[in-house]
C-alpha cells in the first residue's frame, strides 16, 4: 500500500525531494558558488529525468482523484526533459544571479503542479495543480526584480490568470451544480449536451484557452514572454504549454466526450482565429521573444487542428508534435537566452550578420526555426504534417486549406529571421560569443532531437501504443 503511494507518485516525490534539498541548501548557512550549485542542480535534474523511466507503476490514488498511466508517465518524462533543457539554457543567465535557488524552487514547484494537473482525475486536483503551476510562474516572470518590463509582465500575468481561473471556477461550480460530482469519470457519463453544460464547457474552454494562449484569450502571452527572463519565457512557451495541452486533451477526450460535435465546431473557430492572428502579429515583431511568443501562438492553432480529429492518431500526433516543438523551441530560446544574457540584445535586427560572428549559434537558431516552420528534413515537418493530417481525417478541408496557406505566412516570418542572420549586412554585429558547456549540451540535445525525432518512427509508434483512446 505504502509502496504504491511511493511508486505511483514517484515523479512527484522526486521533485519534492529536489525542492526540499534546495530549500535546505537555501536555509543552510554555507555559501555555495553559483557554478557548483548550477552543475549539481542540473545533475539532480538529469537524475530525475533518467529516473522518470524506471519503476513507473500505473494506478490511481485518493480514490480516483489522482491517477496515472504509462501515457501520463511519458508526458511527465517529456516535461522533465523540457525542465532539464530549460535549466541548462538558463545557465548563462543564472550564473551571475543571486537568487538562483529560489528560481529552481519556484520553477520546480510549478512543474510539480503540472504533474498533479496532468494526472488529475478530479476537478479539485486539476484546479490545485493549475494554480500551483501558475502562481509561482508569475513570481518567476518578475524574477529580474529591477527590470520594469519584468514586473509589468508579472503583473499582467497574475491578474489575467486570476481572472481566467475565476471564470473557470465559475464554470466548474456550475458543473458541480449540474452534475453534483467533480470526478472526471463520473462527469463523462453525466454530461449530455444540455445548454447549461455547454455554457459551463465554454467557460472551462476559456480557461484552458487562456493557458494555451488561444486567440482571443492569448493577449497576456506576448507581453509576458517579452517581459519575463528568457529562461522563464522558454519554460512558459514550452513546458507549461505542453502540460496544459496534455490535460486539455484528457479533459476533451474523456470529460466532454459527449459534447464532441459541439466542441469540434468551437475548436474550429478558435483554431482558425489563433493561426491567423498569431501569424499576422508574428510578422511584425522585432523583439525575438515576442516574435517567438506569437509564433508559438500560431503553433497552438495547429495543435488544435490536430486535436480536432478526435482519434488515436490525432492524440499521438499532438504529443509527438509537442515533443518536437519542445526541442525546436528550446533550441531557439537557448540561443536567444545566451545572446541576451551575454549582450542583452533581444531584437531581430541585432541578429543581422550574426552568422559572420557566431556560425554555430546561427545554425542552431536557423535549424530550430526551420523545424518550427515545418521544413524537412527537420522533425518539425513530420510533426506538422501529422498534425494537419489527423485534422484532415475529419474532411474539413476549409480548415486544412486555411492552415496550409497560413503555413506560407509562418514560413515568411521564420525565414525573415534566417535572412537577418545569414544575409543582412550589419556593421556592428553581435560579438563572437563563447558558448558555455551546459547550454552547448542543451543545444546539442535539441539539435539531435530536431534531426532524429522525425526519422525515428518508433518514437511515434511508442506514443501511439501508449495512447489509450
Amino acid at each position, binding site marked *: 500500500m505504502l509502496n504504491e503511494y511511493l511508486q505511483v507518485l514517484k515523479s512527484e516525490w522526486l521533485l519534492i525531494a529536489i525542492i526540499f534539498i534546495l530549500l535546505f541548501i537555501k536555509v543552510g548557512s554555507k555559501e555555495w558558488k553559483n557554478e557548483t550549485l548550477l552543475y549539481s542542480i542540473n545533475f539532480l535534474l538529469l537524475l530525475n529525468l533518467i529516473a522518470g523511466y524506471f519503476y513507473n507503476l500505473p494506478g490511481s490514488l485518493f480514490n480516483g482523484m489522482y491517477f496515472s498511466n504509462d501515457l501520463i508517465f511519458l508526458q511527465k518524462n517529456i516535461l522533465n526533459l523540457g525542465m532539464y533543457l530549460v535549466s541548462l539554457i538558463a545557465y548563462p543567465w543564472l550564473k551571475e544571479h543571486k537568487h538562483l535557488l529560489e528560481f529552481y524552487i519556484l520553477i520546480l514547484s510549478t512543474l510539480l503542479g503540472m504533474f498533479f494537473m496532468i494526472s488529475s482525475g478530479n*476537478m*479539485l486536483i486539476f*484546479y*490545485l495543480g493549475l*494554480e500551483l503551476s501558475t*502562481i*509561482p510562474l*508569475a*513570481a518567476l516572470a*518578475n524574477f529580474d*526584480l*529591477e*527590470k*520594469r*518590463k519584468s*514586473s*509589468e*509582465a*508579472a*503583473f*499582467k500575468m*497574475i*491578474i489575467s490568470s*486570476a*481572472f481566467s481561473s*475565476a*471564470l473557470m*471556477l*465559475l464554470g*466548474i*461550480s*456550475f458543473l*458541480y*451544480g449540474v452534475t*453534483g*460530482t*467533480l470526478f472526471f469519470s463520473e462527469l463523462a457519463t453525466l454530461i449530455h449536451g444540455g445548454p447549461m453544460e455547454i455554457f459551463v464547457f465554454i467557460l472551462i474552454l476559456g480557461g484552458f484557452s487562456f493557458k494555451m494562449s488561444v486567440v482571443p484569450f492569448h493577449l497576456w502571452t*506576448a*507581453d509576458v514572454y*517579452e*517581459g519575463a527572463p528568457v529562461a522563464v519565457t522558454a519554460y512558459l512557451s514550452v513546458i507549461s504549454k505542453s502540460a496544459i495541452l496534455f490535460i486539455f486533451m484528457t479533459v476533451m477526450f474523456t470529460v466532454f466526450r459527449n459534447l464532441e460535435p459541439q466542441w469540434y465546431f468551437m475548436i474550429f473557430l478558435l483554431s482558425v482565429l489563433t493561426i491567423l492572428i498569431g501569424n499576422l502579429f508574428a510578422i*511584425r515583431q522585432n523583439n525575438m521573444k*515576442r516574435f517567438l511568443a506569437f509564433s508559438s501562438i500560431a503553433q497552438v492553432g495547429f495543435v488544435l487542428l490536430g486535436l480536432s480529429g478526435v482519434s488515436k492518431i490525432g492524440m499521438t500526433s499532438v504529443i509527438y508534435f509537442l515533443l518536437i516543438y519542445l526541442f525546436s523551441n528550446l533550441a531557439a530560446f537557448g540561443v536567444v537566452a545566451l545572446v541576451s544574457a551575454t549582450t542583452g540584445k533581444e531584437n531581430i535586427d541585432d541578429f543581422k550578420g550574426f552568422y559572420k560572428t557566431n556560425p554555430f549559434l546561427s545554425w542552431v537558431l536557423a535549424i530550430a526555426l526551420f523545424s518550427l516552420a515545418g521544413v524537412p528534413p527537420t522533425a518539425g515537418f513530420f510533426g506538422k504534417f501529422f498534425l494537419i493530417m489527423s485534422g484532415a481525417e475529419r474532411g474539413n478541408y476549409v480548415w486544412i486549406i486555411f492552415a496550409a496557406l497560413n503555413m506560407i505566412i509562418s514560413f515568411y516570418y521564420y525565414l525573415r529571421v534566417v535572412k537577418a542572420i545569414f544575409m543582412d549586412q550589419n556593421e556592428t554585429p553581435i560579438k563572437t560569443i563563447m558558448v558555455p558547456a551546459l547550454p552547448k549540451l542543451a543545444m546539442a540535445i535539441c539539435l539531435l532531437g530536431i534531426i532524429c525525432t522525425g526519422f525515428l518512427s518508433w518514437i511515434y509508434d511508442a506514443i501511439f501504443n501508449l495512447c489509450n483512446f
Partner: protein
Amino acid sequence: MSEIPLTHILFLSTGLFFIGVYGLFTRRNMITMLMSVELMLNSVNINFVAFNKYLYPEKLDGIFFTIFVITIAAAEAAVAIAIIINLYRSHHSIDVEDASEMKY
C-alpha cells in the same frame, strides 16, 4: 422560518461575480483590481457552498472546494501584492495605465 430558495443565492453570487468583473474592467488601481478578482472568487465559493447545501447535501465536495479556493486565493493575493509592490518600485505608481509599455 421559511427556507431561502437556491435561486436567491445564485442571484447573489452572480451579482457578486459581475460586480467583480466590472471592478476589474474599470478600476485603475491595481489593488482594487485584485480585490475585484477576490470578489469573483468568493462568488464562486458561494456557488459551491450553495450547490452543496441545497442539491447534494450527502457529500461535501463543494465545501472542500471552497476551502481550497479560499486558500489559493490568499496565495494568489500574496504573490500579486508582492508583484505590485515590486512594480511600484520601478514605476512609482500602481495605476494600471502606467503598466502598459509592452504592446502591439
